[in-house]
């Protein structure tokens, strides 16, 4: 049989990203969301070789606490050992590979495989080897059968990251300026922050990059969330898209700074929060200023933020805080896990307000997220229409909004598509997808986030 050259109607030299600074055009080839081959490349080049968000330390507060979780398709045990150290193991018995821990969470000193009863301590040593007289009488054998640890684990402000590649740069190098914005969320509570139980676990029929785009896309807010915007207006809060900006934090990380999006529990009052919360907002601001100084307090409190940490973490620092983690399952399917991230020791009434307010917006049962999911599931269905189209030019998605502004060197607006473009540039670099660039890109590197005093106020 004659060897066939795969036909993929891509741009110049097979590029998946087509960037043209003369025509002010930025396009992404739709096979990027569709093609199982692209998906496999992503799991290999991104998930196997980049820092990934695993979970937050407060999910496993006590020695012996554990959660099981899948990251990049690999089952993991996320636990705190008897000495209090945070660890991540591959969730597979070193003997024959059985999933070792089949519970989603709990507390244990030992993980025991049910198949042949091998047992491992929560720091990974092989603790029991039934019938060990039939094995070499050699401590090195036991040592070689210790539970397999994830090659790298580092923690920033309680956010635990792992890497399956021992040679990744340090976590803080990977995070770059994104580390600062994670720190801002960690500083909100006088007594720290914690994740809550009640994890929103759901799955969407869409490519993981559509979830990233959606979070970095202020353009969709008004039309997609028309009913939510209407609800806010009725409760006495006018939403505005003006004077809100997007930042390329480098490394694929992105940030939207949103001032007119909504109020913030304890920081920016709006009528639906009620009078008790109005008084607390004043007290809370004094507390923030005393603890952090007026400038940092203003940065923490005055604007909502949506932070994307490449490739799988989203921090929605909005009315309240949600941590969202993306797990790619297939080209057209993504598992999502979302935690409420709250101030330690806040009064019950505030906690209740926070949960009510956040889940009224965020999550598969909120008044807004279902429309986001509808949008990107609809994209996933829609983009099959132009696959292998007669005119290959039809099989591209356009993300050129705001390029003229970008070319002039202006700070990108949240209602433009600049944050998506910077994500795609980094994506192409990491997965080795071709990028065709025509014309002259704007000179100079983009600002690494808002400067002190806060752009966009």
């Amino acid at each position, binding site marked *: 049989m004659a060897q066939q050259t795969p036909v993929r109607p891509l741009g110049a030299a097979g590029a998946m990203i087509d960037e043209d600074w003369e025509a002010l055009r930025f396009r992404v080839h739709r096979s990027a969301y569709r093609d199982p081959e692209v998906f496999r490349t992503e799991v290999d080049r991104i998930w196997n070789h980049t820092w990934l968000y695993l979970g937050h330390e407060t999910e496993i507060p006590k020695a012996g606490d554990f959660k099981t979780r899948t990251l990049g398709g690999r089952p993991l045990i996320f636990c705190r050992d008897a000495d209090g150290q945070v660890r991540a193991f591959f969730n597979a018995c070193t003997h024959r590979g059985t999933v070792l821990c089949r519970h989603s969470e709990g507390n244990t000193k030992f993980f025991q495989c049910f198949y042949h009863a091998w047992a491992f301590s929560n720091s990974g040593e092989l603790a029991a080897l039934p019938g060990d007289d039939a094995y070499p009488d050699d401590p090195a054998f036991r040592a070689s059968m210790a539970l397999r640890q994830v090659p790298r684990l580092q923690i920033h402000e309680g956010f635990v990251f792992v890497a399956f590649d021992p040679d990744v740069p340090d976590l803080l190098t990977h995070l770059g300026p994104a580390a600062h914005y994670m720190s801002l969320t960690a500083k909100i509570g006088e007594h720290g922050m914690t994740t809550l139980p*009640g994890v929103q676990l759901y*799955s*969407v029929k869409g490519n993981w990059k559509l979830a990233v785009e959606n979070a970095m896309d202020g353009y969709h807010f008004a039309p997609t969330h028309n*009913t939510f915007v*209407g609800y806010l207006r009725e409760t006495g809060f006018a939403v505005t898209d003006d004077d809100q900006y997007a930042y390329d934090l480098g490394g694929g990380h992105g940030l939207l700074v949103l001032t007119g999006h909504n109020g913030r529990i304890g920081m920016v009052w709006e009528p639906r929060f009620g009078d008790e919360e109005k008084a607390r907002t004043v007290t809370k601001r004094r507390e923030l200023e005393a603890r952090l100084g007026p400038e940092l307090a203003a940065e923490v409190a005055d604007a909502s933020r949506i932070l994307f940490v490449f490739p799988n973490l989203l921090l929605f620092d909005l009315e309240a805080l949600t941590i969202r983690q993306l797990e790619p399952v297939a080209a057209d399917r993504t598992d999502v896990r979302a935690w409420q991230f709250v101030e330690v020791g806040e009064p019950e009434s505030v906690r209740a307000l926070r949960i009510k307010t956040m*889940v009224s917006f965020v999550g*598969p049962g909120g*008044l807004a997220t*279902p429309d986001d*999911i509808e949008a990107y599931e609809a994209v996933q269905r829609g983009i099959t229409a132009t696959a292998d189209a007669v005119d290959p030019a039809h099989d591209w998605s356009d993300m050129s909004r705001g390029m003229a502004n970008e070319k002039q060197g202006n700070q990108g607006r949240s209602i433009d598509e600049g944050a998506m473009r910077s994500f795609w540039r980094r994506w192409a670099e990491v997965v080795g997808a071709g990028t065709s660039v025509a014309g002259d890109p704007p000179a100079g590197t983009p600002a690494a986030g808002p400067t002190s005093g806060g752009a966009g106020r």
Partner: protein
Amino acid sequence: MSTTVGSPRGVVKVESREVTRAEVEDFLYREAQLLDEWRLDEWLTLIEPGGRLEVPTTDWAGWDATTAGYFVADDYELIQARVKRLKSRKAHAENPHSRTHRMISNVLLLEAGAETVWISANFLIHRYRDGGAYTYVGRYEHVLKVDPDGLRFRLRRAVPVMESMDPGARLSFIL
């Protein structure tokens, strides 16, 4: 509020008024019909002003909505906002509406309060949309206000028993 397994009561007394399992079943079946037919304004009248609508997450271990994340934690204002939203053409996740088909069974009267009765029931909801079929399985844990002429929800809580919301299986309709 402990479940009296083994002695489910077919009738409880709330003050001097008797509430029977048949009355509760009729109430739940009627509600299911209103929801399946998307008669949301009529459905809203089944909720007591000040009532709550809750859907805990799939890892739920009895936490209330002041101590844990939820899928839905609506006070009465939010329930009204939800109904208004779902009636709008701009509720994109439900335009067009999902087709739903609810089966309710295993109705138990658990405990009577001063003016309420606490009941539980199982639900099985099939939902169809965009060529997809989704199944939602769980139980209701409702607190019903007993009025002289009928029942209304003081707390309407749907507890999913799935391990996670399946792909495409969001909670954009009333569970």
